């Protein structure tokens, strides 16, 4: 314990040196700018700016990259709340309630809650990272294909709790999204599926064009043609920050989101995106006013935003403790380290203490910087809403094209966004929910891969899912959730029978 404090002191001394501070600030600023672009999230941000870090020394480079990472997550929430366009795929859930809050004039409150929630989650998870990194990482390694399958299946079941409307329609949308996720090269056999000769579809339909198209472009298509402009209540200055009630409503969701997000982030290879979906579903289930969700529930913003940021820090656990990349973003950071001659691995903490602890310290500082950057800007950002919509939406459209193109440098992505925009327009008109589609696109390839990898490991025997403790536990939890979800149905059927029996008795009298 004492050693950790000592090391942390060392880390802060590194992180608080002017040059490191400056690089952290630049990273945060650039990350926010990049994150505001629809669709361009932390991964794209880091990849785009990786070359710029080559001239720097290792610590400065890593600190700047981490700043970009966090900044992109903060910037992404801003676009989601103000314009209902996901700033990155993980902010899709924030779009729903965040934008609803903005419509009610609570944009400032939403932005502030998102910023503070992200800050709290980021800071707490960095603390957890500090103390728990090695044991957590070892635990995380035990997640193999059967465990992923069980976990992701749980993630899918979350859908049952996510939607307010017709269950059948939500499930149909999920199936649609899952089917979309099947496009691309089958990673177990090498066959091209549903790609029709377009090489760029080999990696599948990306979640970014789908999310930006279904949420952003569809929103524009629906709103732009309205004869009467949208009712956006303009907030007064003192109403910019959240009210006491709103703060109170955000506390528990933030806490739950942090824990949930961190745990999901620690597991290598899991989609950190699902942390926000799971948090939303959890908050909705636990809320005393579930009908508020979708209309501007504070918990619907606080939970997912905290989960997102916590998953970010969680993702660093395997990377720092074991030198194992837990996803594409840590992989890029690892590569950045390797180019600077630092070999990440289990020995990193011992061999390069100033890098490790400086990194941790700069994560604290980065979170503080972003809070300072974002909170006062809330007033500035809210003014974006004052711009007349006919002027605003062409700019948003152009930004969306820029963002979606920039991720892969591929026009095919822009076409996918186009197609999903049209589809999203029709779906909204026909009153289908679009969030399950995004979840499906993300989860489908992973669930299938996990299933087939597990079967490859066990040579076709399904018993593998029940012979491993973690997988079995997760599946059991899933089964319980399914039963709980079906209970109302069962109750209604039983109730119906009882009533019928009563009627018959009455008739016989």
């Amino acid at each position, binding site marked *: 314990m004492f050693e950790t404090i000592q090391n942390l002191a060392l880390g802060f001394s590194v992180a608080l040196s002017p040059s490191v501070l400056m690089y952290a600030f630049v990273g945060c600023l650039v990350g926010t700018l990049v994150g505001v672009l629809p669709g361009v999230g932390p991964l794209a941000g*880091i*990849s785009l700016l*990786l*070359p710029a870090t*080559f001239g720097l020394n290792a610590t400065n480079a890593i600190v700047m990259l981490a700043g970009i990472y966090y900044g992109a997550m903060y910037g992404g929430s801003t676009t989601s709340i103000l314009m209902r366009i996901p700033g990155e795929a993980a902010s899709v859930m924030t779009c729903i309630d965040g934008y609803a809050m903005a419509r009610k004039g609570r944009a400032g409150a939403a932005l502030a809650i998102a910023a503070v929630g992200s800050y709290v989650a980021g800071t707490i998870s960095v603390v957890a990272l500090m103390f728990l990194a090695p044991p957590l990482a070892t635990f995380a*390694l*035990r*997640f*193999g*294909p059967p465990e992923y399958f069980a976990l992701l299946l749980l993630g899918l079941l979350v859908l049952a709790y996510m939607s307010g409307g017709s269950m059948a329609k939500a499930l149909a949308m999920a199936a649609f999204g899952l089917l979309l996720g099947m496009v691309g*090269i089958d*990673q*177990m*056999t*090498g*066959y*091209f599926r549903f790609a029709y*000769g377009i*090489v*760029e579809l*080999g*990696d599948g339909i990306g979640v970014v064009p789908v999310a930006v198209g279904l949420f952003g472009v569809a929103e524009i298509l629906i709103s732009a043609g309205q004869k009467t402009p949208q009712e956006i209540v303009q907030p007064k200055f003192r109403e910019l920050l959240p009210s006491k009630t709103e703060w109170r409503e955000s506390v528990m969701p933030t806490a739950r989101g942090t824990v949930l997000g961190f745990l999901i982030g620690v597991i*290598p*290879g899991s989609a950190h995106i699902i942390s926000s979906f799971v948090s939303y579903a959890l908050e909705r289930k636990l809320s005393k006013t579930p009908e508020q969700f979708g209309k501007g529930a504070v918990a619907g913003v606080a939970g997912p935003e905290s989960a997102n940021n916590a998953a970010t820090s969680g993702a660093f656990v*395997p990377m720092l403790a*074991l*030198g*194992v*990349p*837990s996803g*594409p973003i840590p*992989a*890029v*950071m*690892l*590569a*950045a380290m*390797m*180019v*600077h*001659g630092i*070999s*990440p*691995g*289990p*020995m990193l903490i011992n061999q390069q203490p100033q890098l490790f602890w400086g990194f941790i310290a700069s994560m604290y500082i980065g979170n503080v910087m972003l809070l300072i950057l974002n909170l006062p800007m809330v007033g500035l950002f809210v003014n974006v809403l004052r711009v007349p919509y006919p002027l605003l939406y062409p700019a948003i459209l152009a930004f969306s094209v820029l963002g979606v193109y920039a991720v*892969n*440098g*591929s026009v095919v992505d822009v076409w996918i966004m186009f197609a999903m925009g049209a589809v999203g327009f029709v779906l909204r008109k026909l009153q289908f929910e679009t969030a399950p589609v995004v979840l499906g696109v993300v989860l489908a390839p992973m669930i299938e*891969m996990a299933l087939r*990898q597990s079967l*490859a*490991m066990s*040579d076709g025997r399904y018993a593998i899912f029940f012979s491993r403790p973690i997988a079995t536990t997760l599946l059991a939890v899933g089964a319980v959730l399914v039963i709980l979800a079906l209970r109302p149905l069962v109750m209604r059927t039983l109730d119906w029978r009882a009533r019928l029996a009563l009627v018959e008795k009455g008739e016989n009298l």
Partner: protein
Amino acid sequence: MTVLRMLLVALVVLAAGAPALAQEAYPSRPITVVAPFPPGGIADLTGRPLVAALEKVLKNPVALVNRQGAAGAVGMQSVAVSKPDGYTLLVALSSISIIPEADKLFGRPPAYTVDQFAPIALLTADPTVLVVRTESPWKTAKELVEDAKKRPNQILYSSSGVYGTLHMAMELLSQAAGIKLRHVPASGGGPAVTALLGGHVEALASGPAAVLPHIKAGKLRVLAGWGAERIAALPDVPTFRELGYPEAEFYIWSGLFAPKATPAPVLAKLRDAVKQAVNEPEFKDVMAKQETPITFKQGEDFQKFFDADARRLAEGVRRVGKIETK
């Protein structure tokens, strides 16, 4: 008459000077080097330092761009069909020979063919190494092979993807030693190492750079290498050639390519530039830090190496055939 003669002279002068005019000095615009993999991969680790060195040598901006997709096919295809003016280049890994073969196997029109490229130089040629966890019962490669013969299709190994470099390396070994191992593909080099570390598979063929830190930390044990010679960083590790399996030779190499129709003087200039670039002290420094030896080959040398490698891989892919789904 004099006017006509003057015109004729002018024409001759122009004609003589025209090629010089038409041929603007190369390079005069920024050069783009495409790395057809996601950022952070092996192509980046070699490509980015190379690009920095090339910039210095050519005194002209050179930038690396990631164009990922379809295990590299997207980026490679984009360079194959790009304008052959020397401003679009490709840094490719050994998978460049595998992808067209896999396409042939599935009866698809190939995304590109290898002869759409003109090789400029080979940069690195890391042989893959066979790694297992230190807790596993095999201390030498021979023990693993013996065990595999006794229990066919029981020993699990991971790879970066089906028909990928790590998969093909293991397949070459299996074919050479006459054993059958069970393949559990992962979605990339990183996840493949993670799967091994977590104990979900038991063996892996990997590029040395990715596993060296774990070997040094005592988590993984390296049994043998697929190279013709031992690796400098691992001098005690025998090669499969020494162990009696000479057909198990595989390198994850990286090389610089240009579209085939690039004019010869441009190619010559590039070849010179790369030769100088790999001798730049900064480049050598970065590669040494990554513990990746620079294996520089050009011209005939590279062509021979490339052809032999392509032949081996084509044969390997054909023997793997389509994955059985009875």
